[in-house]
């Protein structure tokens, strides 16, 4: 009995018998900077209980490279601790709660999206400016899952295939087809590698941060700092400005020449700079993106970032409080996006810092994400007791983490006048002092002229 309880506690992952994957079709996109795997999974419930939760397992070798995973048919995701899977299979388990349970003897097709970064290994490790970038991609032939898989087929989309280790695969131009494979046991793995051409710059933000300062005088100041690194094949030999020039866009495709960012439509006073001043190569326009009004910014780094090179930059802008700060008496509600605004990039670590006006109290943060939170005080212009500041830290962060976070706090109306009154008082005092000193006659001895 006791043993049974132990087992029940240790293993919350309970796979029903007769619940299996009848068919899975995976499409692995290897054409971009990051790897995107789209899987259409057909679940079959031949058991007697309706299934509400399905499990996704990720091997520890890949878990820190997975920056986002979701299932279209589910809107609740959480990581669960499962000792059995953790130690036997060396994997982490995600639990997805389905919107609609799978009834006995019914089936459901779900769409699983996996996003990975840092999965390409440059091979050769060093290339010249004019060379193509070749990379190695390592994957398991079988879908790593706690379920029995009846039928699996996998497609690899690439720019160009050089070679692959699994000889049974069939190649159609840029497409590799693996399978179909039948009756695969749970947690089956078999490693294979593909050597392919991928000329997109393998850039990653090694560090990103966003600093927000809220002023009740009507402005929200946002500054984002980025450290970028190209982790693709390193540049070999000479740089060669003759070959790599602005008139020849096809040379050095593996170097990062441009990034784009989207800011809120009502942002203003945008700046783009680094430690030594403005970077004068950027364009900004207000327009529509995905049906949403946005300010689109094209950022070009000071120099094209080749493999092994690094750079850093700062992007800053202002927002009016009108739209992002709601007031109800003394209660305030601030709505902000969590993630940074440069698109199509993943950051290894991310730091988000929000400073509320001096005198704000009773602060509550509503976080849709798992992050580490620290609070501190920031001393900025004319601060005496410091602004309450919330610091949120997260590892691997991407656009998928761009969820709205809501901060509610209390702030009395008089506090807003404190700093102006302070300045006013100081000047008043100074002028009075000067007037007094001017009228003071310190001459004790009157000399005859």
């Amino acid at each position, binding site marked *: 009995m006791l043993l049974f309880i132990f087992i029940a506690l240790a293993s919350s992952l309970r796979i029903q018998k007769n619940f299996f994957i009848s068919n899975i079709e995976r499409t692995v996109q290897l054409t971009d900077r990051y790897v995107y795997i789209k899987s259409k999974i057909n679940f079959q419930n031949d058991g007697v209980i309706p299934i509400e939760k399905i499990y996704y397992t990720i091997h520890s070798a890949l878990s820190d490279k997975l920056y986002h995973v979701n299932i279209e048919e589910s809107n609740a995701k959480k990581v669960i601790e499962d000792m059995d899977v953790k130690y036997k299979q060396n994997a982490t388990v995600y639990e997805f709660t389905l919107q609609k349970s799978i009834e006995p003897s019914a089936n459901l097709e779900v769409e699983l999206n996996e996003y990975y970064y840092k999965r390409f290994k440059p091979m050769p490790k060093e290339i010249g400016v004019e060379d193509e970038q070749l990379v190695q991609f390592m994957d398991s032939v079988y879908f790593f899952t706690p379920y029995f898989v009846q039928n699996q087929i996998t497609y690899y989309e690439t720019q160009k295939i050089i070679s692959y280790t699994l000889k049974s695969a069939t190649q159609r131009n840029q497409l590799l087809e693996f399978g179909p494979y039948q009756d695969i046991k749970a947690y089956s793995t078999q490693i294979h590698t593909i050597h392919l051409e991928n000329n997109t710059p393998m850039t990653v933000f090694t560090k990103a941060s966003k600093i927000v300062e809220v002023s009740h005088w009507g402005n929200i100041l946002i500054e984002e700092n980025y450290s970028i690194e190209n982790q693709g094949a390193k540049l070999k030999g*000479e740089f060669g*400005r*003759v070959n790599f020039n602005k008139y020849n866009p096809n040379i050095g495709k593996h170097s990062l020449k441009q990034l784009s960012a989207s800011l809120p439509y009502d942002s203003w006073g945008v700046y783009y700079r680094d430690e*030594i001043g*403005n970077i*004068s190569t950027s364009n900004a326009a207000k327009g529509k993106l995905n049906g949403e009004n946005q300010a689109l910014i094209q950022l070009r780094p000071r*120099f094209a970032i080749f493999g092994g*090179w690094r*750079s850093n930059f700062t992007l800053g802008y202002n927002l009016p409080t009108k739209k992002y700060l709601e007031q109800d008496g003394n209660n305030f509600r601030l709505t902000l996006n969590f993630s940074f605004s440069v698109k199509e990039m993943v950051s290894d670590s991310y730091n988000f810092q929000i400073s509320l006006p001096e005198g704000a109290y009773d602060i509550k943060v509503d976080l849709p994400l798992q992050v580490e939170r620290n609070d501190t005080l920031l001393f900025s*212009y004319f601060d005496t007791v410091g602004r309450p500041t919330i610091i949120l830290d997260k590892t691997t962060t991407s656009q998928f983490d761009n969820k709205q976070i809501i901060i509610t706090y209390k702030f009395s109306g008089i506090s807003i006048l404190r700093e102006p009154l302070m300045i006013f008082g100081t000047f008043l005092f100074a002028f009075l002092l000067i007037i007094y000193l001017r009228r003071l006659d310190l001459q004790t001895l009157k000399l005859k002229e």
Partner: protein
Amino acid sequence: MSSEEETQQSLPYKVHKSTLKWAPVFNMTILLSIAIISCLIRVFSVIRYESIIHEFDPWFNYRTTQYLVKEGPYALWNWYDSESWYPLGRSVGGTVYPGLMMTSGMIYWVLHKLSIPIDIRNVCVFLAPIFSAFTSLAAYGMTKEITKRSEAGLLSALFVAIVPSYMSRSVAGSYDNEGVSIFALVFTFYTFLKTVNTGSILWGVYTALAFFYMVASWGGYAFIINIIPIFVLFLLITGRSNSRIQVAYNVFYILGTLLAMQIPFVGFQALHSSEHMASHAVFILINFLNFFSWIRNFVSKKAIITLTKFLIVFLVFSILVGVVILTLAGKTQWSGRSLTLLDPTYAKKYIPIIASVSEHQATTWSSFFFDLHYLILFSPVGLYYCYNKPTETKIFGALYTVLGVYFASVMVRLLLVLAPAVSIMAGIGISWAFRKFAKSVRSFILPKIEKPKKYRIPPEISIIGLVILGYYCSIYVLHANFAGSEAYASPSIILSSRDRQGNRNIIDDYREAYYWLRMNTRPDDKIMSWWDYGYQITGMSNRTVLVDNNTWNNTHIATVGMAMASSEEDAFEICEKLDVDYVLVIFGGILNYSGDDINKFLWMVRIGGGVYPHIKEEDYYGKGTYRVDQYATETMTNSLMYRLSYYRFDEVQTAYGQPKGYDTVRQAVIGVKGYKLRHFEEAFTSENWIVRIFKRKQRENRDGVAFTSKSTSQFTIPKEFSPVTKFSKKANTKQRSTLNFQNNE
């Protein structure tokens, strides 16, 4: 009601009365507006470009200020900078005028204490404009001391506030010593004149303090320590000396010299350097004469004559002997720059490194006119006014102007010292003319108030005169505005061009390359470049350089010059000995940017040849001229500078209708094509090729065994330049006096 009362009630009289009543308010308002204008006109550079540190030397000052703010004043005092002058390093604390950095450090600390967390960069960028406002206030005070008239003061303040010469050194971002020291200069003169007028010891103390600030901030303090003795001497000779002058000079000299010695960079030079000799001599003289006139009260007339004769002979003889002994013993010395001031051809003959700097050249008429504009026409009027009815202060103003004109003619850079003098004189002159005209107009409108006089300019002519003078003044203002917004607004590290549609394009090659160095080289890599770019590389790239704009060690600069002028193989040997990892050259052949290294190359050859005689200037002349085309000599085309600048240049087309490899600056097709580099590789080239960075390759296997350079092993280092003497005390003072030269630009 009498008729007189009636006229008093009429409109012109009312206006006149109320204007007189409100005059002090007008005065203050105008002065305040001038101060604000002087700030605003200098902010054009930030508006047109950005809030950035300009040019060359400001980058060092900025870096030092950052260090000061971060580490504190004592750390700066002891700062031994290992990032420059590799492998020698530089003792910054003892070789810097700390006034500028201390000023911005103080502003920074005070603001931070008041919880205004301003960025130190912005303090540095906006320091010069703020001080220019102070300068205009000081100029107002000084003019008022000279003429006792506010209107002259106001005009002078306006002229100083916008004089292009001063603006060239004090636009926002031009964070240089001159930015604060021109204020210190004018303020010292103002306090000195105040002392002269009042004879107050308190004001004398203020003079000494202002002088102390000047010494702390700029080597140009030598001008003050010479002009005041000259002024006093002039008064002594012309018999205008009095007790007020004695008080003023003695307080200034004693306190000023003591305070000057507190600056580590000056130290005991305040006693024994030649620049200070005049002040010592005049101090002795003035007190001796005082003593003499005191003695005269006690002895008979006959004895006086003998005594006078004896004392004069004794004094002259002892001073002469003293100077000769000191000079022969090497205790006192003229610095290279001071000698250049006394003998304008000196540097050209003996010190190429001073002559190579364009701001040490003799001033041309065009730069005189561009930098001072109509002021050079107005100031003689002021000079006439001063000589017409001389007082002590007027004599001082006139002397200052005349000496300033001499120094400004010798060196372009010293136009800066002349600018306040000319502005003040012009202000005095114009206001004098205005006053004459205004008086005649006033006597026409208000006949009762003005006293009748024999002769007065007819009012019609007065009005014409007023209009013409006003027109010229406004032309001057417009010119100053142009100079501030266009000519002097460029930070020089950011270039801009206009395309055919009139769009403004920013050419940001310098920062592109400097930032590449900062991000993509190892932190301890050493960069070799010509000394002009040293400060910028340490400032923007945060990397170690061999030589920089502080040209304290001529041998080291000559070594870099030799490396640039040597063949690739020899240069490799030199670079390896100096631990050079990257070589940076500036190349303008694509963009027609003429201030590049190929154009400066002859100076490298000259300076290198000055120490290493195997480098001869003639070897770099092809067919008698300096050229890069097919007639260039082999020495020229083999030199590292040529090889690096033109590496793979023959593969690009730069101009329509010209073959590949056409250099747009030299207007010639390069002479050597299709060569490869053996020991260096192109690490980075900026978008428009302005900055090219080459990496020194590692020596190939067995390379050192098989290869020994003939020419590098042949040359011998002359003894006086041998590295051992570099740190000896005697050599150090010599080097000190050649410190702080400006760039080649």
